[in-house]
């Protein structure tokens, strides 16, 4: 059977920075001759690092959603709002378009990212049967959307400066925003440290085991 040729089997690796094809020395890592980045067959400790960052992100998601992120004080009244209550306020004010944007950016995206990463990690860790095209799609979504979560924090930093009129109106940040900022950074780093080539490693390994079993089955019958 004509199986796809992969770089690591031939002792080659691609530089993740400049995409130069490099011959790996015995140690399995070297410096890219073209851009000077470190080159390794697979990202070092990718699984462990991504697991650690994903779990950290999931744990931090709790304080990020329970603690208030922002307080709008208008005419000496106002109470701290969390991310969810901020979305609800927008929805009740009839601004459902904006409410949807904020909901997607600050609730749906982080949760989707963490769940997506966990799914990929479980599939690779336990070498489950996977459909590589689907897994790649998931990986690309997960690594592409993360940055939009910072929307809420940018909005807070704009409002803090903009609504600053002492007793009449004031916006103050809350401790939840720190936790949320950390969630965003941690999940972005998690997506970075995940090596999609591991998906194909698992897939190829399963394929080769299957074909061997088929051969054995044929031999046994014959």
């Amino acid at each position, binding site marked *: 059977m004509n199986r796809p040729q992969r770089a690591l089997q*031939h002792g080659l690796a691609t530089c993740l920075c400049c*995409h130069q094809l490099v011959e790996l020395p015995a140690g399995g890592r070297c410096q890219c001759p073209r851009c000077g980045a470190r080159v390794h067959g697979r990202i070092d400790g990718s699984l462990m690092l991504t697991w650690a960052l994903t779990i950290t992100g999931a744990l931090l998601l709790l304080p990020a959603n329970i603690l208030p992120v922002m307080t709008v004080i208008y005419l000496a009244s106002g109470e701290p709002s969390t991310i969810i209550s901020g979305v609800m306020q927008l929805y009740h004010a009839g601004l459902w378009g904006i409410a949807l944007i904020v909901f997607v950016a600050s609730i749906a995206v982080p949760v989707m990212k963490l769940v997506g990463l966990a799914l990929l990690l479980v599939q690779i860790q336990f070498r489950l049967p996977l459909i590589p095209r689907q897994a*790649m799609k998931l990986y690309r979504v997960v690594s592409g959307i993360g940055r939009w979560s910072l929307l809420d924090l940018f909005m807070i930093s704009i409002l803090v400066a903009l*609504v600053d009129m002492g007793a009449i109106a004031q916006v103050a940040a809350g401790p939840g925003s720190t936790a949320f*900022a950390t969630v965003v950074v941690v999940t*972005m780093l998690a997506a970075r440290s995940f090596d*999609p080539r591991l998906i194909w490693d698992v897939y190829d390994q399963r394929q080769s085991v299957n074909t061997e079993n088929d051969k054995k089955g044929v031999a046994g019958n014959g």
Partner: protein
Amino acid sequence: MQHGRDKTPTHWQRACHECDLLLTGRLAPPGQKLLCPRCNATLHRNAKNSIRYTAALSLTGLVLFIPTASLPLLHFSIFAFGAENTLVNGVLSLFDAGYIWLSTLVLFCSVLAPLGKFLLLAFICWGSGWAFLDRPVGAAVRWYQHLKEWGMLDVYMLGILVALIKMSDLGKMEVEPGLYCFVAMMLVANLTTLSFDPQAVWDRMGRRRERRLRAAGAGESS
């Protein structure tokens, strides 16, 4: 010089950075994309006149950065009281309120990373014409790749829109000239990202090295 020649009859030119598939094609034709046949990753996007456009765009971005960072973006007023926001004064008030980590992140993603990207690209485009700058330019390309996803002007733009709509029923919101500069800078930043093709820089360096070798050879033979 070529890699993996001794082991395989084919000259592998490139390995997919997302699935490790070895490929014989190296570059996309001008103005087109080269996709991985196995996982559909974009291996190379060949932008026309990449270096020239990127140089012009990054200089435009740097020029636009000055008014964007100094002029106010929005003006908000309730009764006779008003306040303005610039790119940095929100960060400063967050910092004063003790949110050091949050304000650093916002500053990094909305000011430092975009500025750094423009500076690095301007340096790369200018420096790739000089032989003695080969190493620093290689390092600059590497830093640019790391910095790329942290420049979030587009997310910040959405943050401005959400803030604008959210506060519109509380008081009067006015758009200041800085915002127009900001929008222009955001567009230029996105165009710069699209037009920059690191492969063009490597090719330029490679051509120069070849020319020098040939000149040295001609000098010896005469």
